[in-house]
């Protein structure tokens, strides 16, 4: 009688184990599938060199305005447009170099996804700048804040296809821009074009540089997409 009970208990234990195992492996397989699908959609090139390069260009361009006076709304907009194109060009070259080094496609699917996600934010920034320039507004300092807020929106959207930190970086740009919009008058009595250049150096230069250095020490050396 006792052995029959033990036998039944053994069978029940085995049944429970098998049930738990089958549930476990099926769940694990689904987890693996989810992780791989997410991974294949994420842009994983090393961001640290791009951030550092963009930051250096921003800080350098802002410092240059201490020696070369660029006054007025249109010269300001044109100057920083050229700087942005330069930074963008350098970043694209770095991405291309990474792609060639790892024998991968430059314009890969994750890269396309990131570009498509960021585009509306950048487009709104460009359109708003055009409107400000066309209106001939005197407040040059508003332009960097519009740019950084729109850039933050673009980066945040692109962050859905990039490592998590990019979304936070986007939020930081947005919140800083809005904060400065509201509070700059309290800090600087009458912001000038010079203030606007410093804002560009701070928002685009220093922020990128700091985040780039942070990534340099934390980012995994994974460069493949």
């Amino acid at each position, binding site marked *: 009688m006792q052995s029959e009970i033990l036998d039944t208990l053994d069978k029940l234990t085995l049944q429970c184990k098998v049930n738990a195992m089958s549930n476990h492996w*099926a769940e694990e397989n689904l987890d693996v599938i989810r992780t791989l*699908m997410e*991974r*294949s959609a994420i842009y994983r090139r090393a961001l640290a060199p791009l951030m550092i390069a963009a930051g250096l260009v921003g800080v350098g361009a802002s410092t240059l305005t201490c020696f070369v006076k660029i006054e007025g709304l249109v010269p300001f907009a044109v100057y920083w447009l050229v700087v942005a194109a330069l930074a963008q060009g350098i970043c694209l070259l770095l991405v291309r170099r990474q792609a060639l080094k*790892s024998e991968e*496609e430059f314009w*890969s699917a994750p890269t396309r996804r990131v570009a498509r996600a960021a585009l509306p934010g950048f487009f709104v920034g460009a359109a708003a700048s055009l409107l400000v320039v066309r209106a001939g507004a005197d407040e040059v300092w508003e332009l960097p804040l519009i740019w950084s807020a729109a850039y933050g929106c673009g980066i945040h959207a692109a962050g859905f296809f990039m490592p998590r930190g990019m979304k936070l970086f986007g939020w930081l740009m947005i919140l800083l821009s809005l904060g400065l919009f509201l509070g700059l008058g309290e800090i600087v009595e009458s912001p000038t074009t010079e203030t606007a250049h410093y804002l560009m150096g701070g928002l685009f230069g220093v922020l990128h540089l700091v985040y780039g250095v942070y990534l340099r020490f934390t980012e995994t050396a994974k460069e*493949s997409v």
Partner: protein
Amino acid sequence: MNPEDFQKLDRVIHEKGRMAIMSLLAATAEVSFTDMRNTLGMTDGNLTTHIKHLQKAGYVGVTKSFRGKRPLTTLSLTGQGRAAFADYIDALEKIVKSARG
């Protein structure tokens, strides 16, 4: 636990390496052989064997072209492969659900 759920699992996909390949391909339109190898950390030989298996089942399409002077092998899921992968995930979900009771 319903044994039929286990039988529904596609044997071609139900292998660690091939399931990983199918997962990556299901998330994107196409992936190059090099990207796939680097992402999954497989050897060329291992990946080739799995791809041949999937190709034979009609689940994966292989396109060979040139990028500059270098040959480029691109992999993508076929319609049949996408449907089979969706069925495989459904079967896994059923197993998880039935095991939870």
